[in-house]
């Protein structure tokens, strides 16, 4: 489904990703872990098409199409979803209006029929139940005045509504207390399916107690230096990222 080959990317002239390779099949959950500054968030931003990230080498294909050639909105319509580390507050834009505009824009881009407001509200009610989110949040402006936990839950709620093929969770656990973390993880788990893949980007192993990954990768120095199953995350928790450096750098240097 997602093939990242030898990806190099620069931000403000500084090379952050230095030859990242990763393959994700439908239904798989991949955790990307790594120390601060390793390029974790850059990966999410490059995949979703944010301005200011320059890809200098490598390729990303998604369901066989060149993802990097698409505008952000086209990537979304193709089925890529980024749950933001810092969801943006947008005063003056009603949350429900925004969600319907987003869903219908995606449907239109895919040649599907747009939903009228009755159909849309029915869908929203179904998804609200799954996410245990208060419908009061829907009547407010997008993320405006939301608590940290509400913002992250709103991200997962959007994901539930937009039903992407690939969801990238960018440090969704940051700033959440344990209760909020569990709620968010529950939401994510409810959306797991044999067709939907996840890239779970995180600094801490904690999130992976609740969202169990099929694969764990360690990103350091702009490359994946170690891959394994969920036991790798526990090893990291025990030894810290310093262990990866000792462990991973020689392999990288000789490559």
């Amino acid at each position, binding site marked *: 489904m997602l093939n990242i080959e030898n990806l190099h990317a620069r931000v403000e002239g500084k090379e952050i990703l230095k030859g990242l390779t990763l393959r994700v099949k439908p239904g798989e959950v991949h955790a990307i872990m790594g120390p601060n500054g390793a390029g974790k968030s850059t990966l999410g931003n490059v995949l979703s098409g944010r*301005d200011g990230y320059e890809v200098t080498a490598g390729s990303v294909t998604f369901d066989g199409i060149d993802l990097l050639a698409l*505008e*952000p*909105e086209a990537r*979304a319509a193709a089925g890529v979803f980024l749950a933001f580390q810092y969801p*943006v507050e*947008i005063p003056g*834009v009603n949350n429900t209006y*925004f969600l319907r505009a987003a869903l219908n824009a995606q449907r239109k881009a895919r040649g599907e029929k747009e939903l009228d407001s009755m159909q849309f509200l029915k869908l929203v009610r179904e998804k609200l139940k799954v996410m245990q989110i208060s419908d009061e949040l829907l009547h407010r402006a997008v993320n405006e005045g939301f608590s940290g936990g509400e913002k992250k839950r709103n991200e997962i709620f959007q994901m539930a509504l937009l039903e992407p093929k690939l969801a990238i969770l960018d440090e969704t656990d940051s700033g959440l207390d344990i209760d909020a973390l569990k709620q968010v993880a529950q939401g994510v788990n409810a959306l797991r399916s044999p067709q939907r893949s996840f890239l779970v980007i995180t600094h801490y192993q904690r999130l992976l107690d609740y969202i169990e990954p099929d694969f764990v990768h360690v990103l350091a120095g702009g490359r994946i230096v170690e891959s394994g199953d969920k036991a790798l995350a526990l090893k990291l928790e025990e030894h810290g990222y310093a262990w990866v450096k000792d462990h991973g750098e020689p392999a990288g240097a000789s490559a």
Partner: protein
Amino acid sequence: MSQPAPLPFVASLLDAPLPASGIAWLDALRRAHLDAFAAAGLPDTRMEAWKYTALRALGQRRYANGDAQAAARAVDPAAFDLPGVDGPRLAFVNGVFRADLSALDDLPAGLVLQPLAQALRQDAEPLRFVLSRHEPEQGDAFVRLNAARAEDGVALKVAAGAKIAAPVHLVFLGAPAESDLAWHLRHVIELGEGAELALVEHHVGAEQQHLGTAVGDITLRDGAVLRQVLLQQAATGSSLIRRSRLQLGARAQATLHVLELGGALARHELRAELAGDGARLDTRGVFMPRGRQHIDTQLAIRHQALNTASESVWRGVADQRARGVFRGAILVAPGADGSDASLSNKNLLLSGQAEIDTKPELEIYADEVKAAHGATVGQLDERSLFYLRSRGIPHDEARALLTAAFCRAVLDDLPNAALREHLAGLLANQLPD
């Protein structure tokens, strides 16, 4: 010493006889204003009030005086159809009254609505004071031109205590003609004590490059309430210069919602006097020039009585190579103790070549005054734009959504819901794709 040749603009507008009303004081007034216009010409950017609005290009243009064919111009009434606005209507095409496009039958009790020319013919004397009381200042070229050449306009009067439910629609249409025309209208509007009126001033036009000037006096007697919407959608090639003078008596209230969208060169000078104790004025406006449009709003509010209040909320959005100008001057005169004045003007530049010049001014000569003012100029938030796009909303739609959100505060408290929705739609569609 020879006089320098007058500008083509000035020469063309002197090049027709003045209207003869047969009313001695009015004809003398017109003559005096035309002479003053001829002598002074157009103001230039060295004059503070015109610092950001250059008239060099206008000065080189020529206009024919008035439209002799106006009565025969074909106009599609759908052009000025507005949801939520279906009351009495007074319509002008290229500055000429059109009974066939107006709706003046069965006016509600207490409302007098007619063309000014008709009111002057019936009895000019009650209009004498208001038509002669203002002495133009330096730089008031268009006010002089208007005073000299305006033959018609809106004469509207609401009797004391009358509450007019249906909004009155004033339509000013520009229609294509054989040459570029100059037209001038003079409005006199009065709300008696305790009277209430909703008014929609609507400038709209097809493809043409006419010049229109309008000068209006709106007087609110004690306790009168005016809710006015000013929708300026003049043709993008046209020029429209207006001055509105608003006078509020004790406890009178006026609320203005303004959308300035049209015109190649559009300027509106709104001068309000809070003359009676407890008077209140709320203005909310958006100016949104695009292309090469130049839209200039000059707001001057004078607090002259005790416990008067004004709140002004304005948004400017300029795209492409457009220019927006906003000046908001609030003066609290000596003795106007207990006044409460606030003014906010936030602006958005959607292109690197767009420009907005904003200047809030505050002068206070009274005690126990609350006053606040502020202005900002910024760009669309890239993070918000990316957030919307990452959810599948195309770039142009995301931009329009954020711009509409930026302007939202201006329309929020407009009570006419149908009209509010329509205006919000106009704002969303004003941006080029």
